Structures are given as C-alpha cells and as structure tokens.
C-alpha cells in the first residue's frame, strides 16, 4: 500500500466511543484501518493523542471586506494550526454573505487555500438589516446549512418567526445573535461596553445586562417551539441562558448551543485594565456565569465549543475602550484552553473524550457536516488532529497564523499543543509547521 500509518497514538474518538492506543492507517483520503499492523510508511505518534479534526461552528474570516484583519487564507491557516479541519464563517462580511455569490467566493478562496474545509453561514436577512429574508434557497444550493445575522440580532419577532419557518424547507438551522438590542443600546460607542454589574458600575462603562441575552434566547426558544424549526444559540454567556436552553431541551426542543472558550474561562474583572483585547460581544461575564457555562458543557446543555474567532488589527484594538471593536481570536488556542481549563480543572468539567466531542463530533453533527467529527473508522475521510497532551506552551500573539493579534490569552501558559492536522489524508499542518 502507498499510504501511511500513525503509530502509538492514543486514539480518542468520541463518535466511535474509542479511547485506546491504536495504529491508524490512511491511504489516499481515507482511513483504511484502526488498530491494525503498520501499513505503508510509519509515522511515529507515540505519546500523542489522535482525534477527529476539530470543527468550529462560529468564526469570522473577514473576507471579503476586511482583509486587513484576516483573509480566508490566513484564517483557515490559523484553523489548521489549531487542529481544525472544518470551520463555519459568519455572514457579516462586506459585502454581506446574503446571496450565493459570496458563498461561492468564500468557498472558492477556501478551496484554493486548502487549509481546511469551510462551510459558510448565510445571512438570515438581506444586509443583516433584520427586515427582508435573504434568498436562503440559493445559498442552500451552494451548501449552506445555517443562517445567521451574527453580530446583529434579528430584532423583529415576526421576521425571526418567518425565518425559522422558511428554513424548514431544507431543515436548515437558524442561529440568532442573542441580544435584545433595546437593552444594550444602539451598539457602537454609545452602546453597551461590558457586562452590567458591580464592575461596570465602578468603571463607568455602559452595561450589557444578562437579561438582554436571556430575553432574546427565551423569545427565540418560544418562537421555535412547536414549529419543528432548528434553532442554534451562539456564544452562550449567562447562567440564565444556560438554564433556558436546558429547560427547552428537556421539553424536546430542536435547539443546539455553543459556548466560546473565553466565556468559560475569563471574567469581567479583566475589563478593569481597560485593555480592549478583553472587549467582546457578548461580554466577559461573572464567575457565576463562567461556572454555569461550564456546567452547561458538562451536562450537554451546551453542545459545542465554538471560538467566535474575531480578528481585528492592532490599530483597531489599541483605541479607547468605547471605540474599539468587539472580538477575540480563538482558533489557535481553543484546544489548549479547553484542555487546560476544563479537562484539567479540579473537579474535572469534561473528560478528554467529552472535550473532544464538544470540539469536533457535536458541532459536526449539529450542523449536518458529514465526514468531520469522526468516527475514526475504515472508510471514513481522514480528517484528524494529532496533539501532544503534555506539552506546555505560552501563547505568543505574534507567533499566531492569524493576521491579527487580539488574543486574550497572550502570555498565558496552556497545556496541549497541536502537532499535526490532516484534511482528507493530507497534512495541512505538520510537526508544528503549516504544510
């Protein structure tokens, strides 16, 4: 055979229920054997973990429109370096991804770059204006499974209800940015700047109250209920929102949810530095909220860890807090932050297998992304990540593959480092270097 065999790795495959040291043989684009003898070239993976390639439901690749912050090429390179084999870029580009043309453009740029698979998210409404529905059918024809006006909540309950109903045509997913905008101000300089609470009170920054998230999540859950519609709640950040989703799931709602690494690790106290690297929407919340998000991940209320990777160039972030844009990088730190903060936590929040499930299997399934997220079995596409679970490293913002540097984890020591990433049997990232 002409392929190769990864030997000696601990294979952790949440989809296949496997967690054992085994050889994995790959020929061409597919896995041909698990647990067999060495076939083809031997690639030593002793001491490493082999898992399904990671899947990110929520990234911003900024192209078209803000190529100074990120491009499809640089963003997917960051994804490959972070162990991802599939990412879903949000529609808030310029022009907005509200028609097939932008879907096609982003998909083509991703294919040309070849770092990972890209599944564009289409806009719910034209221009993200929350008024007229975008032509979903044309975008579905180009592979879109999920629609979102991310960053811009769909304010009108009527438009949201119609979107949920209309998307049923293709059993597509509606993901609404959960922010009741009348409670957070108009956005921008005059709008909410940080979590509302004791700290916003002291720092003199306009508050983003947890109610604004919960009111919107509650509204959307009610609108989706009984319609057979599929709702996805992005970046869950408050304890109340976790409770609402837990209750809805218990009643059988077709709802999935994601949480961002910064929302299960960082708290609003960091805003006291007035360093806009900590400015994000929804904002960093309190310890109690962080704890609730962790519980939501542990009990399955929150299905997926999604980064909300949001690059901004330094000149945008190094401004007055109120003027700086919201957003943080995430692709190249998500795995290590998850291992360090959830798997190593005392008491443990997630087992390694569950953590990898939240980073690969669950997001792939929740968005109908075939061929990703495992199982790692003969015949399956070889979309895999190999990481060293024991390697400790310190995040250096300048060493990231993203065009931007706005990581809140700069200088933080993390556990677990991506060694290699394989996309359909081909290394996209190999031994710590972009392939």
């Amino acid at each position, binding site marked *: 055979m002409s392929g190769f065999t990864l030997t000696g790795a601990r294979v952790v495959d949440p989809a296949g229920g496997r967690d054992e040291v085994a050889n994995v043989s790959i020929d061409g684009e597919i896995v041909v054997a698990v647990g067999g003898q060495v076939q083809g070239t031997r690639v030593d993976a002793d001491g490493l973990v082999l898992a399904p390639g990671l899947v990110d439901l929520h990234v911003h690749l900024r192209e078209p429109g803000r190529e100074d912050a990120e491009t499809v090429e640089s963003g997917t390179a960051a994804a490959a370096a972070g162990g991802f084999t599939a990412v879903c870029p949000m529609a808030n580009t310029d022009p907005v991804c509200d028609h097939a043309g932008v879907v096609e453009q982003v998909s083509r740029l991703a294919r040309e770059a070849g770092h990972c698979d890209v599944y564009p998210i289409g806009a719910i409404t034209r221009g993200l204006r929350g008024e007229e529905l975008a032509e979903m059918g044309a975008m579905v024809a180009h592979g879109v499974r999920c629609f979102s006006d991310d960053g811009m909540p769909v304010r009108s309950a009527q438009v949201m209800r119609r979107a949920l109903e209309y998307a049923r045509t293709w059993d597509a997913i509606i993901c609404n940015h959960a922010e009741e905008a009348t409670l957070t101000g108009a956005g921008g300089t005059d709008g909410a700047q940080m979590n509302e609470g004791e700290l916003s009170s002291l720092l*003199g*920054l306009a508050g983003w109250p947890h109610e604004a998230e919960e009111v919107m999540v509650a509204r959307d859950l009610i609108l989706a209920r009984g319609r057979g519609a599929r709702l996805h709640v992005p970046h869950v950040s408050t304890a109340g929102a976790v409770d609402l989703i837990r209750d809805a799931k218990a009643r059988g709602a077709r709802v999935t949810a994601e949480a961002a690494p910064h929302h299960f690790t960082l708290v609003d106290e960091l805003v006291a*530095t*007035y*360093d806009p690297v900590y400015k994000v929407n929804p904002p960093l919340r309190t310890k109690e909220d962080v704890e609730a998000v962790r519980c939501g991940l542990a009990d399955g209320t929150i299905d997926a860890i999604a980064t909300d990777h949001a690059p901004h160039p330094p000149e945008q972030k190094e401004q007055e*807090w*109120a003027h700086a844009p919201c957003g943080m990088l995430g692709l190249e730190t998500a795995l290590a932050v998850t291992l360090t903060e959830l798997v190593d936590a005392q008491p443990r929040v997630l087992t390694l297998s569950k953590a990898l499930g939240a980073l690969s299997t669950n997001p792939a399934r929740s968005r109908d992304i075939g061929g990703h997220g495992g199982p790692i079995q003969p015949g399956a596409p070889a979309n895999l990540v190999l990481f060293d679970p024991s390697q400790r490293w310190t995040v250096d913002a300048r060493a990231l593959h993203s065009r931007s540097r706005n990581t809140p984890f700069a200088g933080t020591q993390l556990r677990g480092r991506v060694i290699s990433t394989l996309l359909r049997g081909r290394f996209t990232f190999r031994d710590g270097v972009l392939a």
Partner: protein
Amino acid sequence: MIPHLLSMQDLSADQITAILDTAETLKEIALRPIKKVPTLRGRTVCNLFFEDSTRTRISFELAAKRLSADVINFSAKGSSVSKGEGLKDTALTLQAMGVDAIVVRHAASGAPQQLTRWVDAKVLNAGDGWHQHPTQGLLDLFTIRERLGHIDGLRAAVVGDVFHSRVARSVVQGLLTMGAEVTIVGPPTLLPPRVDTWGTAVSHDLDAVLPKTDVLYLLRVQQERMGEQFFPSSREYARIWGVDRDRLARLPEGAVVMHPGPMNRGVEVTADAADAPNSMIQLQVTNGIAVRMSCLYLMLGGEDGRAADVGGRGSNSERVEA
C-alpha cells in the same frame, strides 16, 4: 507618592489628607499680589482635552502656571486628533516631546488609564466618561473640610444622576474613604448598577433625607437623559428631586450645598437655592485651583529635591518670580 492620578479609588485616607494639607498651604499663594512660585519651573504640563471643558481646563492651567510649569494646551479640535490621529499616537507624540505630566479629559471611560501604558509622563485624569473625576472629588473634600472642619462622621447626600456621573463616583468614594456616611438619592433609573456594593445608603425620598444631611451634593441632570426615558420630564424631576428654598430649609443648621457645575438652574437646583448663603458652589471653583496645584506639586515636585519647599506662608518671597 502618587504615580498617576486616575481614580479616587486608588487614594488612601492618608494620601487624600496629604493632598488637602498641601492644598491648604498652596491656597495662600492666591492671596499674594504675585500669584506664582517657582516650584515646577522647567517642568512641562500638557492639558490634553478630547472633550470640551472650560472650567476644568482653565483651573488646571492656572494651577500649573502658578507653580511656574510650562503649559501647553492640546485640544481635540484644531489638532491632529481631528485628522484621525488616535489616542495612542497622540500619546506617543507627547512622549517624544518629553512632557512631564499629561492632564487628560476624555469622553471615553478608561482613556487616562490607557495612556499610562504608552507614556512615561505622569497622567492626571481630568474626567473620563462616566468613570472618574478625581480632582473634582478632591476639591469637594477640601471645601467640605475647610468649611465644616472635618469630613469624618459627616452625613452626605449625593442627589441625582449618579449612574452617568464621573463626579459622583469620585465624590462618593472620597467621602467614604474619609469616613463620611453617604446616602445616594434619586430615581432608581439613575442609580448605577449594583449600587448595593458601593457602601452607601440609598433613598428615593429626598425630603426624608434632608433633615439628616450635613452635605447636600447635587449632580447635574443631563437633559439628554430625558429622551432615553430615565425620567419622564425635567418638571417632574425638579418636583421630586430638585432643590429649592423650601427644601433647603429642611436641612439642619450649618449644612452646606454643593454642585460640581455647570448647573441647570430650575432643574436640580433653583436659582435662589444655588445662591443661598450655605451654597459652596463658588468656593468649590476657587478651591479647584489650589487642589490641582497640590496634585501637580505632589506628583511632579519633590524629585531632585528642588521642589521640597512649596513656599509656605510668606517664608520665601525671594523665590517668587516677577
């Protein structure tokens, strides 16, 4: 002793006392025919104002000039800021020019703190967003101490739009640090979030609070808040939380009335209440200069031993510059 003056929260009671004591000495300079001492000769103070302010800028400018510092005024209008130069580049420019202190006023909370990351100069916050206005708080404490003899144990009521007030944050923290009891009074919509963590009492009933108040501190009501539905109308505000002669009469003997200015006469305070004998409003303005001199002196003086003597009462007339 103070690396930067960003927030009243950073100051201990001892530090505040030192600033007020020094201000007391410096206030005397204003009584001299030549209102100037050479203490900060050769030092450069930049007034960096990104937001309009007449009284605070002039007060800082006079304070610096009375200490013989060189003063440059850099206002956002008519400068490179209006050409799109950002806070950081402006800071780096001033850094390259070697200014010793930057007095900064900015509409964005936290901008002074951000400046400290980019410059070696001492940064004095002259008001940032809703956050802090520490020299206003200090001049208020100075005025209270001057008039009532002490701050410890006094009962203060801070009335009005505490939510959007940088003055309130500085004054309340300063009063608490110095041992006063503080009651925040106003409609619930104008109270800051989690006001329960501020260490004050809270009341919505001004008339009940007045008889137990030694210092009545009125905040400016910003008209634009009405449009945002924090309260229905300025008439209703004036009726429930505004101070007129009748309400002044409910204060105990010896109580004082303060306001950071500029006033909305007829809203939070009527004209005759503002001009009543126990109104400290003009004295606050006067004291602002001495307190700002004190801050500049304590932050910039003292190094290389040349500013140890601030020119106490009549002791150094030979050092007074012509």
